[in-house]
């Protein structure tokens, strides 16, 4: 049934990165396994060897320090939902974690794994994009920090090298004058793949929208920001007409497809509706 592979279960982080050194793609890191094991069974992936992070508990943490919220490379979706730091400083991430798959998957699936799989429907990615999160990639020779906005390059492709692990994800604590939220539209309320996901993060200053982030999931080859829509509302006091116009622009910016879950037209309409609703609600709460 399965393609055969070898498996390493290192106890220390240094061993894990050493096992990945020199890797050109035949070795895969295994975290929660909720996507990877399914892909192995379907033979969509046929690695020679897996390096499991299951025994490396030092990668599982959440921390608030120096004005930033950070989470470790093996922090799970359930960990997010139990952390007061995330409840306070990552409302959109809580929204996404709360509608992520089902309970058993949330208990093992990691935030880093949701990023690494590169699915355009990855629910944690729109919130992280709207929070301007950074991703830390580590290999045997050191670490580099990449804004998540520059992480994905196209459908299921990213800038992570085969010998690198996602070891940390962090974002600046949002200011008191900002609101960030996420909404997932799917065929069911639970245990479903996203049809359209929208995350919004607005900051207000002096009666205008000082900063806007709008991130769209499952409507392009990768999760994307609606940058033209963001520019349209930044620096402006928001009116219903301007919000509608920005939402129309966001719907034009995405590149959805028809699939078994919804048509491209439906997805564009959902982007328009959800962007309008989330931006309106955020603005109402801030003014």
């Amino acid at each position: 049934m399965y393609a055969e592979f070898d498996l390493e279960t290192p106890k220390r982080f240094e061993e894990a990165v050493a096992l990945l050194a020199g890797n050109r793609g035949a070795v895969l890191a295994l975290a929660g396994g909720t996507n990877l094991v399914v892909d192995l069974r379907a033979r969509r992936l046929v690695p020679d060897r897996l390096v499991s992070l299951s025994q490396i508990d030092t990668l599982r943490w959440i921390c608030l320090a120096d004005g930033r919220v950070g989470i470790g490379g093996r922090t799970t979706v359930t960990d997010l939902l139990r952390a007061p730091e995330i409840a306070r400083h990552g409302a959109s991430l809580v929204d996404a974690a709360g509608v992520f798959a089902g309970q058993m998957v949330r208990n093992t699936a990691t935030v880093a794994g949701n990023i690494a799989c590169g699915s355009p429907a990855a629910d944690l990615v729109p919130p992280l994009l709207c929070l301007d999160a950074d991703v830390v990639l580590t290999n045997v020779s050191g670490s580099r920090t990449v804004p998540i906005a520059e992480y994905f390059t196209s459908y299921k492709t990213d800038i992570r090298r085969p010998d690198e692990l996602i070891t940390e994800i962090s974002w600046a604590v949002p200011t008191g004058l900002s609101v960030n939220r996420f909404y997932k539209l799917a065929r069911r309320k639970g245990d479903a793949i996203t049809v359209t996901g929208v995350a919004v993060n607005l900051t207000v200053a002096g009666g205008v929208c000082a900063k806007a982030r709008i991130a769209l999931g499952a409507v392009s080859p990768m999760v994307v920001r609606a940058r033209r829509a963001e520019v349209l509302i930044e620096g402006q006091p928001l009116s219903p007409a301007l919000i509608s116009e920005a939402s129309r622009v966001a719907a034009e910016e995405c590149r959805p497809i028809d699939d078994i879950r919804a048509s491209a037209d439906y997805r564009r309409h959902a982007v328009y509706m959800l962007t309008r609703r989330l931006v309106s609600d955020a603005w109402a709460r801030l003014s």
Partner: protein
Amino acid sequence: MSREKTISLNVNGRIHQQAFPAHRTLLEALRELGHFDVKSGCEKGDCGACAVLVDGEAVDSCLTLAWTVEGRTITTVAGLGNAQNPHPLQEAFAKLGAVQCGYCTPGLIMASESLLRRTSDPNDDDIRFALSGNLCRCTGYTKVFDAVKEAAARARISGERK
């Protein structure tokens, strides 16, 4: 080639030493060891029939490779209780008709147990969230919710007596 390795699995308080290939899932390993109370359903993390507790947290054993849970504490539904000495959840599920065909029941009970270990008085939203990864096509879930609440109430009463 998959390597084989003898690993030690702690299941329901008993240590099993057995050789498994690297690609063996915890679900397959448990059934090989005779734990047929763990059910195989979708084998892709949608249905929850294979749920077991690993260190007290409900996980899908079909998505877990056996080697990765060496040294952890694994609990299956038979580890909670048996016909002579049932766990409050097992008793409440049977009494209230939350079991029909029974195939999803072991997974539902393990997900419920994971909830009750953290939340002694769950409301409907807590139960809905905790059981969001368990599919049942018979009961419509209504009696399952009743059973989880009854088991929680019984556990609270017996907790007060202690």
